């Protein structure tokens, strides 16, 4: 018999266990005490206590992206739930599967302005994939199982379940996951064969093709990344990726052009501009990639593989739309390619690669190495060398350091690169690193950070210490909000309004106050030493404060409103003829 009588709180615990959850990130409060009581009386589900609910969600995101599982969060009503909003929106923008449980005031008090009451479902409706308010304990188990299904199916995303306190106390019946099927939501996973055949034809006859891949491949699982790699190697085509897709194809391979977009490489952006066939797998033609839409890749035919039909033909009209899971589509593509014994246009491809090598030779990531000041790119290059061959995960905060990390740290496997792309949330990196570290206790986890971003969620050092998560916080300290300062320099006449990091703490003393290791590098010679010391710390967090050149700007750069082949390479390039008005208004 599948039914059992349990309290609502016990139903929550059982449902989470049956869904394969092993860690839940959360913070207690009045409305959620019954669940915390049930947590206390069991040992299978581990709870990680954060210091701010926003960090609970980011930690769950780091956990989810690094493992492929659904992340799990538990917060209380009112301010607990509203503190989680930024994290939920971050997960929605980057399509991360999460289930967030929030406490709520008892059902008879809802709508009465009770203590710590908030219209959680109303507030989180636009920032979650879906949300639920459970008013009857007999619906609780089914709703929880449905929530996990919705979170991980189709295009993944965050789902919130609001559970009133009286429902947590009440007795109800539990139903196991196998008995729960959603009435309507059945995302299309397998694509139409006719479309795939069309795409294969186009690919076989391409003269200047390019693969443009994104987060969709990562979400489809590591097998999808393997299939992608196989297909790309079979065709011999060049491949680029968005920020969210890094690692799906090995960066060490010669066919890898580097990341594309606003701070992407010259060769990647130009290959996209001049291609005749663009194969988009799991990316969404974001504005950071397209630049001015009217000038985006004007001469090319576009194939777009995406599991979300609303992503297709949203900003860019495509010729062959394919709705389906990236992994399933790649599998079909490879099978048909082999079955029809397709081959590529070798002479045309050779000529295309010749052109690409020409663009590569410009060495767009070059920077002015100097002994007098640590360049942020140099610090990342030394980090790259030190991590070579070691199993590592990288998270970042948001800003210039994030772009440099994407440019200078190579990834050969998926699920190793955790960053806030769509929402660009400062304060994401540290909690995400903690989530990733707890999922992979033996790996090296480095949070590449800026000093301004670090301050946003620095209270989470306490969480890392409590759970012995030896994350390494690699702060590229340039004393400014770097990306903001760069835009103010290029577009607002160097009027650095509110972008200077005043009143910074001594990061070494800060680390030591928490019982962690604090390191500092102020000269070029010290960089290798602190990196070596940092990697030797395995039982507690480590904060490394690297004083880098405050004036360094991140290049290449496509200024807002420009076409994606209008690229600035360095400080000597100034945005040609004043940036157009529609460029100024773009973030």
């Amino acid at each position, binding site marked *: 018999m599948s039914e059992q009588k349990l309290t609502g709180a016990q139903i929550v615990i059982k449902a989470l266990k049956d869904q394969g959850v092993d860690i839940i990130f959360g913070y207690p409060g009045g409305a959620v005490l019954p669940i915390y009581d049930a947590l206390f009386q069991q040992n299978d589900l581990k709870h990680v206590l954060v210091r701010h609910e926003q960090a609970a969600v980011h930690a769950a995101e780091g956990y989810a992206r690094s493992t492929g599982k659904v992340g799990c969060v538990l917060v209380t009503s009112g301010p607990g739930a509203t503190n989680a909003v930024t994290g939920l929106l971050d997960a929605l923008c980057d399509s991360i599967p999460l289930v967030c449980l929030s406490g709520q005031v008892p059902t008879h008090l809802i709508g009465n302005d009770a203590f710590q009451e908030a219209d959680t*479902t*109303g507030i989180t*409706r*636009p920032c979650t*994939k*879906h*949300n639920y*308010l459970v008013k009857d304990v007999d619906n609780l188990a089914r709703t929880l199982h449905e929530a996990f299904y*919705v979170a991980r199916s*189709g*295009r993944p995303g965050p789902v919130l379940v609001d559970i009133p306190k009286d429902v947590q106390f009440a007795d109800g019946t539990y139903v196991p996951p196998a008995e729960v099927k*959603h*009435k*309507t*939501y059945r995302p299309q996973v397998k694509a139409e064969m006719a479309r795939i055949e069309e795409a294969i034809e186009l690919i076989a006859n391409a003269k200047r093709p390019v693969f443009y891949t994104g987060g969709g491949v990562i979400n489809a699982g590591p097998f999808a990344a393997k299939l992608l790699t196989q297909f790309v190697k079979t065709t011999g085509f060049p491949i680029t990726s968005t920020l969210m897709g890094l690692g799906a194809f090995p960066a060490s391979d010669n066919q890898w052009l580097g990341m594309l977009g606003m701070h992407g490489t010259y060769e990647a952006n130009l290959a996209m501009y001049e291609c005749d066939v663009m194969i988009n797998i799991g990316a969404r033609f974001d504005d950071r990639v397209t630049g001015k839409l009217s000038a985006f890749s004007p001469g090319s035919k576009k194939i777009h593989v995406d599991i*979300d*039909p*609303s992503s*297709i*033909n*949203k900003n860019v*009209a495509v010729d062959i739309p394919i709705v389906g899971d990236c992994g399933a589509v790649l599998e079909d593509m490879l099978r048909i390619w082999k079955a029809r014994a397709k081959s590529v246009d070798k002479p045309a491809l050779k000529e295309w690669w010749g052109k690409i090598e020409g663009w590569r030779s410009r060495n767009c990531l070059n920077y002015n190495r100097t002994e007098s000041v640590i360049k942020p790119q140099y610090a990342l290059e030394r980090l790259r060398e030190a991590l070579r061959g070691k199993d590592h995960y990288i998270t970042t905060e948001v800003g210039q350091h994030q772009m440099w990390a994407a440019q200078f740290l190579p990834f050969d496997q998926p699920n190793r690169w955790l960053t806030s792309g769509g929402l660009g949330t400062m304060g994401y990196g540290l909690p995400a690193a903690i989530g990733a570290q707890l999922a992979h206790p033996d790996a090296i986890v480095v949070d590449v950070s800026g000093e301004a971003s670090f301050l946003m969620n620095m209270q989470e050092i306490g969480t890392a210490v409590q759970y012995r998560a030896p994350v390494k916080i690699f702060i590229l300290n340039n004393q400014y909000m770097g990306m903001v300062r760069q835009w103010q320099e290029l577009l607002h006449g160097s009027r650095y309004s509110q972008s200077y990091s005043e009143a910074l703490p001594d990061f070494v003393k800060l680390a030591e106050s928490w019982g962690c290791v604090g390191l500092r590098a102020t000269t070029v010679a010290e960089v290798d030493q602190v990196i070596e010391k940092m990697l030797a710390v395995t039982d507690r967090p480590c904060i490394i404060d690297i004083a880098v050149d405050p004036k360094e700007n991140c290049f290449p750069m496509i200024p807002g409103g420009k076409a994606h082949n209008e690229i600035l390479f360095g400080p000597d390039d100034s945005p040609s003829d004043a940036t157009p008005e529609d460029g100024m208004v773009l973030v």
Partner: protein
Amino acid sequence: MENAIEKHTIAVLVDNEPGVLARVIGLFSGRGYNIESLTVAEVNNADHLSRITLVTSGTRMIIEQIKAQLGRLVPVHRVHDLTDEGPSVERELALVKVAGTGDRRIEALRLADIFQAKVVDATLSSFVFELTGTTEQVDDFVGLMGQLGLVEASRTGVVAMSKGPAAF
């Protein structure tokens, strides 16, 4: 022409659950889409299904986006573009209160008769008319009453149904 603005009537079958209307409206307001009219009611009590009929306008690409965004909402069962899918019937209902005496009252009653509106309330100085018709007919009637002592008009917005035997 790609940038021509088109008006479309879209019927959406949804789970009748708390918040589903807020979800649809939130989608439109959050993405800046236009709602010209919207009606909703439960159509299947056993399965808890409601039908939302909305009239929206935008370029072809926007209309396709609206349908795709509606389609991916979890409680949505089906989305039908009645304007695209073939001939359909559209109707609106209006309750129109008109006050007046003498010639204006006689003229109002005469026009109501012409439009086949029913009198659902009558006093010596006022009427409430009930009119069902296309949006254009209702617009015309309310416009005329505007010059004959219109006090208040209450309209439902468009409900629509495809012609022929197929569902929707």
